[in-house]
């Protein structure tokens, strides 16, 4: 039995049909075609599939797609502003915050959720925001530095 699902994905309305019980990760990747969302563990432990549902970080692999129908969903595909990268994306590049890159989409979205609700986070806030996201290459320090830098630069821009 297919279920109709409507999402506001990165500011645009999308509609699709999904199998009953399908998770948001599979619906975003295979029904909607947003391949910027990555699956890591498929059991809610690694954080790489993190997307924002109504602004809050959610693990797409353990989120029922049906439960998001009618909601706003944000993924990495919606991060850049026109031709410009999002400040977080620029900061991740400048701080070499990716090696293999597998955790990067989830890290970016967890960081965006943090900066959207707290534009001036402390180091502890950043650690707290990404503590559900596993990275196996960087040792986390470059990621923390990138998020703090993006926040600082955003604060300077709006000041």
């Amino acid at each position, binding site marked *: 039995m297919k279920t109709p699902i409507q999402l506001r994905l990165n500011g645009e309305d999308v509609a699709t049909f999904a199998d009953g019980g399908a998770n948001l990760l599979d619906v975003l990747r295979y029904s909607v075609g947003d391949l910027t969302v990555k699956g890591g*563990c498929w*059991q809610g*432990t*690694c954080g790489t599939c993190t997307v924002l549902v109504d602004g809050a970080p959610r693990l797409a692999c353990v989120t029922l797609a049906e439960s998001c129908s009618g909601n706003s969903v944000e993924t990495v595909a919606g991060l850049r502003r026109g031709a410009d990268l999002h400040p977080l994306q620029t900061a991740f590049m400048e701080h*070499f915050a*990716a*090696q*293999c*890159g597998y955790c990067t989409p989830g890290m970016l979205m967890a960081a965006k959720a943090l900066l959207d609700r707290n534009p001036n986070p402390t180091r502890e806030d*950043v*650690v*707290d925001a*990404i*503590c559900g996201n*596993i*990275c*196996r*290459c*960087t*040792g*986390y*320090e*470059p*990621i*923390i530095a990138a998020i703090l830098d993006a926040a600082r630069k955003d604060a300077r821009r709006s000041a």
Partner: protein
Amino acid sequence: MARHRGRGVATINYPIGMNLGGDPSQALVHSNPTGKFTVSLSSIDLGQGMKSVTRQICAETLGVPIEDVYVDTADSDTGPHCMGSFASRGTHRVGNAVMAAAREARGVMMEAAAEELEVDPGDLETDGRGSIHVKGAPHRAISVRDVAIAAQFRQGKTISGRGIFLVPLSEVDPETGEMSPATCYAHACQIVDVEVDDETGDVTVLKMTSAYELGRAINPKLVEQQLVGGSWMGMSHALYETPEPYYPDAREGPRDFNEYLMPGPGDICPHDIIVLERPAADGPFGAKGPGEMCANPSLPAIANAIFNAVGVRIDELPITPERVLRALRARGRSVAPSRAR
């Protein structure tokens, strides 16, 4: 019951690459008719940056802009043979092979340019910005693109080069056991400060201070990235990672990220790093490679720091809180109060 601080030191001499029957890597470099170059490798970039480093090495050797070089890796069915990305060998072995291939390709490129300009190839030089000119006469020039087109469509030449770097098998002397497992070594010294809780057995790494000597740093930012990530991995080996965390039976081992423990973003510590560059005689531009060497000293340094903090020598990894408490109990009494904070 208290928390105790301790400091441990470890040093390492790390062989670059391995030698279990000879250690070769091959590379092929060729130009397209547009004057862009492709490096074909079978070596994999896992995120450590080998594509960036071999790209730099190729561009520098050819004398062309880095944007004009593309590195194609990781098809071992069709690419030139490579032993693989391990043993910290990528920059050194693959880099040398790329350098040799790029040198040969540069020779053909200069010959083709010389034919077009009607001069001797020895009188030509590259400007690194996509042009080749007569030494001392920059106006007598031809672009690499035009040379590539001429080679392809007029001269019937392939601007290409083959490269191999082989560290031959080093036989073991049957009398002395002597052999040369590597042609060069990277070195490091690491100091680790820890805090040990003698009630819970918890070990917190407070600070790392390290010096690494790894030949020429071809790409300093990638080197730093390797060192920061690698020392985190060393801390993880020392204190967290095991396939059998709590029970001796593999069936009780970890099944997923929740059970296979590694330090999270809240478990890391400040790390002061100094990089020393002593170019290796046989390295590409003197490079050796940071690789595995950056994870290794953290294990003994942390074990030594724990000994310094609470006086117990733990020789099994990882050093879990349980092992710390068992060691403290076996020794029979808590540490001297002078060390307690």
